[in-house]
């Protein structure tokens, strides 16, 4: 019996101890009408050998190709040590550290993670992670509503330059709580938040403004002005960041002329999580100290034991569901512990210099790619603003077919932006991280030129 150690002898002896005639008798309190279960549609068991072969076959169907898609999930080099250590049984098969004395490994890792995240964002505190970047934004919105006691409107300004899926998720999670989201468009020249549209809200009661940096188009928002605008209008500033970009870009804790952003969220995936078809990733959430008791999720704090030795515990638990129940700050209880472990190891291996080098190399590689692609007739940048490592490019023809043809050549040539934005049928969003070599960029450029030539001929 796979994963069940009982011998016939054990079963007989254990049943005898319990006084039951059979294992089935242990289920006697379940109504007999419920106990005739047919699950024959589930396949018979396969041996590990058979499943190994099956999964190798399945994995080979998902051959990655040369990937220039970003849009919230990024291919980065992950040092081998990261997952070799993260998947050690002691990390992998432990649970939430309810017994801190038996969980100092996990707890110290999380404390180190919180320290790194606070450092990277320039914020006072970080929690132990949330599910992913999108749900972290939803939690940040709920948190802002709790934290901004001066605002009664529960009105959130949500720019269109925030990742479309993040906007959807935030809406889906918050919509039952009388929170309203007001869309703010983007400037078609710059790809940045439409400041005029924003100004229209200046006299209203606003709970929070969401500020993406870089935004979904990879473009660099004027975060200082936006943060100041929000705070001057009584709103909290919620930053949505790519944590890797913070090795180059101003820390949210320094945004604006006040005390920085109030809450910062982001997708942790670029810090050690493989793309892996979409997850598991982890959501970053940091905030200023004054909001800490409104912060959702687990938090680890340092303390001492009976003999004065330093140690780590889960803290601020009174916010949580098992104590506060319906009054809890959130229903979230798990974090993404294993991903946090990986990220902590990843950031330790990168260090200040390494993370900076990765970020700068990504930026430079994307610039190189943009230069090569825009050298192709009819291909041009859509926006004139500065960008980090993603850029929107207009093709002379519709993107959908071009991308499909590139995929035939095992090149995933970016995201078809029209999936999310009206009037962008010809636009692709491309990204080239530090994983891309000169040869890769050349291959993409050559393939795109070919495909466009064919398309133009056909037209």
């Amino acid at each position: 019996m796979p994963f069940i150690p009982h011998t016939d002898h054990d079963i007989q002896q254990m049943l005898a101890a319990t006084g039951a005639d059979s294992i089935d008798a242990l289920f006697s309190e379940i109504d007999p009408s419920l106990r005739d279960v047919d699950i024959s549609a589930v396949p018979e068991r396969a041996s590990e050998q058979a499943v190994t072969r099956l999964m190798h076959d399945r994995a080979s169907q998902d051959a990655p190709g040369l990937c220039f898609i970003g849009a919230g999930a990024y291919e980065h080099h992950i040092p081998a040590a990261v997952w070799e250590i993260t998947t050690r049984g002691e990390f992998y098969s432990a649970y939430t550290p309810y017994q801190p004395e038996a969980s100092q490994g996990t707890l110290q890792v999380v404390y180190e993670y919180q320290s790194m995240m606070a450092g990277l964002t320039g914020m006072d505190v970080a929690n132990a992670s949330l599910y992913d970047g999108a749900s972290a934004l939803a939690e940040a919105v709920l948190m802002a509503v709790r934290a901004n006691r001066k605002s009664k409107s529960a009105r959130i300004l949500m720019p269109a330059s925030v990742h479309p899926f993040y906007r959807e998720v935030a809406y889906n999670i918050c919509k039952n709580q009388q929170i309203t989201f007001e869309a703010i468009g983007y400037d078609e020249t710059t790809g940045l938040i439409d400041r005029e549209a924003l100004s229209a809200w200046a006299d209203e009661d606003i709970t929070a403004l969401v500020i993406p940096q870089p935004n979904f188009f990879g473009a660099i928002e004027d975060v200082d002005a936006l943060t100041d605008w929000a705070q001057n209008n009584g709103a909290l500033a919620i930053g949505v960041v790519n944590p890797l970009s913070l090795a180059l870009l101003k820390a949210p804790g320094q945004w604006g002329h006040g005390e920085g952003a109030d809450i910062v969220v982001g997708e942790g995936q670029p810090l050690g999580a493989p793309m892996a078809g979409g997850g598991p990733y982890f959501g970053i959430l940091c905030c200023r100290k004054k909001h800490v008791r409104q912060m959702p999720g687990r938090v680890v704090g340092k303390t001492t034991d009976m003999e004065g030795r330093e140690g780590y515990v889960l803290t601020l638990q009174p916010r949580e569901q098992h104590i506060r129940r319906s009054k809890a700050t959130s229903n979230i209880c798990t974090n993404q512990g294993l991903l946090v472990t990986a990220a902590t190891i990843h950031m330790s291996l990168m260090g200040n210099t390494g993370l900076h080098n990765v970020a700068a190399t990504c930026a430079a590689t994307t610039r190189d790619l943009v230069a090569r692609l825009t050298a192709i007739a009819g291909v041009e940048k859509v926006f004139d603003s500065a960008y980090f490592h993603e850029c929107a490019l207009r093709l002379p023809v519709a993107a959908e077919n071009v991308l499909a043809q590139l995929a035939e050549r095992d090149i995933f040539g970016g995201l078809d932006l029209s999936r999310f934005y009206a009037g962008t049928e010809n636009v692709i969003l491309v990204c080239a991280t530090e994983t891309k070599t000169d040869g890769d960029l050349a291959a993409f450029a050559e393939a795109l030129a070919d495909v466009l030539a064919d398309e133009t001929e056909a037209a």
Partner: protein
Amino acid sequence: MTEQLIFEHSRPGRQAAAQAPASAPTIDDLPATAMRRTALGLPEVSELDVVRHYTRLSQQNFSIDTHFYPLGSCTMKHNPRACNTLASLPGFLGRHPLAPARHGQGMMACFYELQEMLKTVTGMAGVSLTPMAGAQGEFTGVAMIKAYHEARGDYERDEILVPEAAHGTNPATAVMCGCKVVEIPADGDGDVDVAALREKVGPKTAGIMLTNPSTLGVFEQDILEISKMIHEAGGLLYYDGANLNAILGKARPGDMGFDVIHMNLHKTFSTPHGGGGPGSGAVGVGKRLLDFMPIPVVGRDGEGEGTTYRWLDERDVPHTIGRLSAFMGNAGVLLRAYIYARLLGREGMTRVAEFATLNSNYLMTRLKAAGFDVAYPERKASHEFIVTLKRQKQELGVGAGDFAKRLLDYGYHAPTVYFPLLVPECLLIEPTETESRETIDGFVDAMIAIWDEARVDATTLTEAPFNLPVRRLDEVAAAKNLDLKFEAETGDARSVA
């Protein structure tokens, strides 16, 4: 035995130099005001520093791979290593979530088949795998119930009934979905008090959230009556899958009348708990809620050789409550659950519940025989049961927390303590099906030995643990003097890169 912080190993200029690009190209086209001017605050260490530090830290954890871990309601069963190895194949790890579906058929085939298997074992009509944890699964379930009533124009239904023994996430979830929580007491046998329930059910009832077997460790005997009552009142039933391990393949929430269920794949399908996550809270729905499922869901076109898989979207799921994660939830966790399900097969799934229940009843019987008080002595245990140490607390001054800490010294992770709140000084004990009789016997011996120690000298328990890297930690001080991050004493560790 304790380990310095990684920051304390940091020295300016030290680096794990093989791991990152050797230099940073100049990026001079970014606005000066957008640029970072402060240190990143990361440690500067060598690869060996990192490997040694985190390897040593890992050794300070109890885990299933090293210790018996009978943490009630958490289903800490063996995580087969094949699930990790195979879910980590390069083809899966390298897949971008937005890459074309036809270049991701391997993963999508796994998801589709997992959906189908989960439908079968729960008796539901549809499954969406996207929720990223139990709590998000709960949210999904209640949000669907809410959306269902609203789609019918039934806007008055805003009450969610929750038994008082439920996990704290249940009421918290109901509130997140904009509902009011109506708590329902338990009766003397640990079942829902049906009479009390009847009084609360009515035209405002959106639904009920039930864990079955409940957190009291017993199967809800009146489930069919409850189901009928709620449905007749126009409400829907939500099944909290936290304890699904207890009935897998033996009874199905769909047959009991539940309209929606979430499954903690990190419990019942043995994906890793990972020190707190990632979890996975896949949801199953009855016919009424099929059109409300969260996306993405994987659909299948064709049969046999020509089979292809695609992402279902709003056109396929017209009333979907929408997307709850940026991409496909915790995809890698789903792969692990799929692999586990294939390794178990249909017979193996039924055995999960059978042997989890056998182990639990055996352990309960042995502890009873040793003189311990169980909360519901007349009931069969489900996959877990409750011991109350009220008597030990009164007679010897040692409670559930003290037994828990002393168990750590004996090399056993403690059961869940002080939950459910209904039972004083309680230990909620869940051995799971993957533990052997010898391990359970060893745990019983430890419980007896600890009780004996308490009779001799209570401080052996109240001051425990003695044999771990740290003694008992001061949680009150931690909450009072919040220290949530390392602050370098000198500028060293935070110097500008």
